[in-house]
């Protein structure tokens, strides 16, 4: 089908943009790796006490992966915003290429490059002591959830890129997502939080997603939060996708 071919053509273009500014990939992995080192080596001992048997590095690896994705997708917003400002989007819009291919190309390349960044971060986690008993089934589910999360946040990024008035502002929303990661069970069990914060942490989307990932990698089971995690990801994906296409079509140049 020509739409798939066109989406891949657009994705190839975005991927070339990513690989040609290697500093993008490096920036995307450096912060999570730095965080990981900081939390494990500087705070690790203090946190370990409240965790009991679970190793702290095992505890935080899912959150670090999520953090990698969240920093990476901001670039999709910036790149789209750049396309819109530079006028090349007009060339694409006057060609018989479907809007979902133009936006989908950004989505596909963002997902692929973020998977790659996550993989790099996972390697570093392994180097500093992350261990797992997870089998093929659990790994597949983990990768599946990571891909779904990446797709959902990428389409959110595309929506933000369409709204942004400047290229610099386009990626700003990712700071909110980053904040949510810290205010979840990603780095510390929620029991230790004040009641109001605890309620927020338990009910916001990051917690079930991180809990499910942690459960898959540490316990070898899918855990209780899988349904909620999936609901959040699919919900965000559908809403962001529909809105993004609508905004794109009605955007005057």
């Amino acid at each position, binding site marked *: 089908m020509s739409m798939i071919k066109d989406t891949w*053509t657009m994705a*190839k273009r975005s991927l070339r943009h990513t690989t040609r500014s290697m500093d993008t990939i490096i920036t995307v992995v450096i912060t999570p790796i730095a965080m990981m080192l900081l939390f494990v080596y500087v705070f690790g001992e203090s946190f370990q006490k409240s965790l009991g048997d679970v190793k702290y590095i095992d505890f935080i690896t899912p959150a670090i992966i999520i953090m990698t994705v969240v920093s990476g997708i901001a670039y999709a917003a910036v790149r789209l915003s750049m396309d819109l400002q530079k*006028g*090349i989007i*007009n060339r694409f819009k*006057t*060609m*018989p290429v479907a809007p979902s291919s133009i936006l989908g190309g950004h989505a596909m390349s963002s997902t692929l490059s973020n998977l790659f960044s996550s993989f790099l971060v996972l390697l570093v986690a392994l180097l500093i002591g992350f261990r797992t008993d997870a089998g093929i089934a659990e790994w597949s589910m983990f990768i599946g959830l990571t891909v779904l999360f990446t797709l959902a946040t990428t389409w959110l990024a595309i929506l933000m890129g369409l709204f942004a008035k400047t290229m610099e502002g386009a990626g700003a929303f990712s700071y909110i997502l980053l904040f949510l990661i810290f205010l979840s069970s990603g780095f510390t069990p929620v029991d230790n939080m004040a009641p109001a914060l605890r309620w927020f942490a338990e009910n916001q989307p990051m917690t079930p997603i991180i809990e499910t990932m942690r459960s898959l990698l540490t316990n070898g089971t899918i855990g209780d939060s899988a349904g909620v995690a999936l609901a959040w990801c699919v919900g965000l994906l559908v809403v962001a996708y529909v809105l993004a296409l609508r905004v794109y079509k009605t955007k005057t*140049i």
Partner: protein
Amino acid sequence: MEKYTAAITVDQLRKSYKKVDVLKGVSFSVEKGSIFALLGSNGAGKTTTINILTTLLNADSGTAIVDGSDVAKDATNVRKHISLTGQFAAVDDILTGRENLEMIGDLRHVANPAETAAKLLDQFDLQDAADRRVATYSGGMRRRLDIAMSLIGSPSIIFFDEPTTGLDPQSRNSMWETIKSLADNGTTIFLTTQYLEEADQLADKIAILNKGKIVAEGTPAALKKLLPHGQVELKFQNEKQLAAAIKLLTSYQTTQDEESLSLAVTTDGTVAQLTQLLTKLESAHIEVTEFTQKAPTLDDVFLKIVNDNKEKKS
């Protein structure tokens, strides 16, 4: 039976932005294989018109049929047969020239994108720079690449939005040659421009757009007959001399400017009349310190046409 002999048919297009009426009922038609120029000054509505015709914008009312398809109802079909070359090159800076061309080749589903790209790189003299990033290209190279990208897929109509605005004379002539050769190959060309000369040089038919309406339409020859003819600007030594000249030349249509001590005189554009004018002044011992001939500007054209319309009504 050929249903549409016209490549483009526009009927009563209207468009408003935020309470400003940009197009107030624009109608015209463009013949297949011809070069059509939409002439107008900045803010006349040229870019809005071309954006509607290339499906970038929806009109508020009216219809536009481009290559047999309605831009509002059948945009995808329209896009299959057209290309737009805007004022600023729509190229991807981070890719190489070759990659840009191959990408468009892929999106237009041509049989062999790599081969098409190679041919165009040759045609537009970009072979040496083909594998360098477009960000390193000069302005002229970017423009050539821009046009090359617009040619992929052999569109039947190519739209040019102010193709030579901001170009030096050499690049401008080069662009004119390119446009002419495209038309020679049977492609319909629709261009917008603010330059009378450009419309005159290139177009088979011109339509003048002023404040959202077509005020004149016709071949360059026909329109030129409507234009005010020559204008000569004369400069004098002092106010006394200027006053004397004005008194002497009452039989001519003149406009004075006391500040610059100049007098603009409308003539029929012939050397004979110019000689007559200068001789008259010399006989009256009025010294002309400087004189320049002014070509009619778009403003002159509009004023003339608007005045003519007013006169017709009264």
